[in-house]
């Protein structure tokens, strides 16, 4: 069977993220990296391949994004994916959730995976909906925020937290699952794996290669528009103490609490 892992290239945590006011899109010019939440999805796929519960022939990393998004694919390969597919096309720029889901689903359709895994959220978009969008297009059952998966025949018994506590849900494959970051502790890639990943070919596809019409994606295919960006109500900045001498720090905290009658 084949597992596809959806990954995303996101601004590095150290980069101060900003919106480009001319396009209302995220400025992606700075350093970027594989979305940290996706490493858990890659790890889960690779563990399935290494283990005996599923017969996994191949783990394929899939992304959509500008040229630089290759970095995310390389990292996914360094972490154990066998190959990667990059949907890269100027027509895709500015895609909202609706258009992005449609485009990713087309790439996945061409791969016809038995299982699609992705991370719980992207570090930049702060939404956790892509898995469910893609699943609906692929006509597959899906579950998000999954922190445990057990194989039972052609079913995957998944557990995750929802509004009332933990739910256990059995999904019949093929299925789409977004995994929570508690599902595993991702490995660190070896230097050899990192070097090797750079040499592996990336299958780069344009929208037309997967049967996408330019009108379905990018700004043209998006169903939302950002009409304005506003500042949140100003909030008084808190006080900050740098802990240099811990006895002194503790004194300051106690005084602060005392002044507010909290002790």
């Amino acid at each position, binding site marked *: 069977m084949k597992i596809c892992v959806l990954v995303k290239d996101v601004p590095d945590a150290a980069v101060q993220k900003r919106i480009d006011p001319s396009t209302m899109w995220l400025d992606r010019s700075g350093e970027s990296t594989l979305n940290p939440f996706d490493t858990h999805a890659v790890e889960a796929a690779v563990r399935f391949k290494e283990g005996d519960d599923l017969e996994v022939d191949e783990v394929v990393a899939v992304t959509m994004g500008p040229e630089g998004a290759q970095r995310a694919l390389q990292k996914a390969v360094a972490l154990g994916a066998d190959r990667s597919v990059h949907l890269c096309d100027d027509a895709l720029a500015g895609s909202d959730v609706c258009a992005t889901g449609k485009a990713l689903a087309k790439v996945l359709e061409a791969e016809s995976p038995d299982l699609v895994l992705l991370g719980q959220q992207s570090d930049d978009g702060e939404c956790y*909906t892509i898995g469910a969008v893609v699943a609906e297009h692929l006509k597959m059952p899906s579950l998000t925020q999954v922190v445990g998966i057990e194989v039972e025949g052609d079913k995957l018994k998944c557990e995750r937290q929802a509004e009332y506590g933990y739910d256990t849900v059995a999904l019949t494959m093929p299925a789409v699952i977004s995994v929570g970051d508690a599902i595993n502790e991702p490995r660190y890639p070896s230097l050899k794996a990192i070097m090797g990943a750079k040499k592996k070919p990336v299958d780069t596809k344009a929208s037309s290669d997967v049967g996408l019409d330019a009108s379905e994606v990018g700004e043209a295919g998006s169903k939302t528009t950002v009409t304005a960006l506003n500042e949140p109500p100003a909030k008084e900045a808190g006080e*900050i103490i740098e802990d240099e001498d811990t006895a002194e720090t503790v004194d300051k905290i106690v005084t602060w609490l005392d002044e507010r009658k909290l002790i």
Partner: protein
Amino acid sequence: MGGILVYALHDGEGNFNKNSLGALSAASGLAGELGSEAAAVVVGDVSDEQAQALGNYGVAKVYRAKDVPEGLAQPIVDVMAKVIQDDGFSYALFGGGLLGFEIGAGLTARLDAGVTMEVTSVKVADGKLIAERPILQDSQIADVGYVGEPGIIIGRLNAFDIEEKGGTAEVVDVDVDLSEWSTKAEMIQRGEQRGADVDIEAADILVGGGRGLGSAEGFEACEQLADAFDNGAVAATRAVVDAGWYPYAAQIGQTGKTVAPKLYLAVGVSGAIQHKVGMQNSETIIAINKDPNAPIFEFSDLGVVGDLNKIMPKLTEALKARKG
């Protein structure tokens, strides 16, 4: 035209979720401004009385799909897609939580519709709804409008206040053929409570522990610190609850509890939005975190940048000494 359809989540026995009741209240107010109506969708075991009672939050009509199970998104996508298409709703609205995110996402694909998530407020402009969505760690707020219909709006936890308006809703039973793939997920157990049934809601002081504690043992230090206060208790992030370090009953946030104690003392908590939404209304917030760029410092009254392993034991000692 302009109608707003709201999904009302319940516990399996028809006790509706607070966030859904908030969404109903908001929808009824917005529909009033648009000159349209708000309606609710419920699935599963909901009695006539329970469904009618949703009228109290301003909806005129409740669509009920009795045979569709509550708790899984895709069957509910089938129900909502049918109701939206048959009766021409212009918007679908969800209160905060998790299921609403999944259903809203499914509807986006099914109906080729725009979606906005983590919405904190909705307003009307030129006869249309605009969703306000904080972005980039809440540093800016985007106004999001929709191209075409329907528009899907997924609220952030606690975004919409409950308003009781009086009234009884008409209940309409709907029959829906489920999509083949919607039947391929089966709920085996719903709402399992993991770990001890701790009570955190009555506490004046909460010590919130996160992954920075390093292990389950780290929570012993949290408990000692909480004990050093009057009426203190320990709360937790999802990361540590999922890891099995602390009981689910103590979890704060999107899929946990919402609290507003006199003091929330966060140790080793990064301050992710999904945690923040459950504790941001605390009267005072103190954070101890070794990362000066941790988001939690953005909404703390007192931020202490340092190693919790050094600071916590000494702070506990100092508070205990004062207490005598």
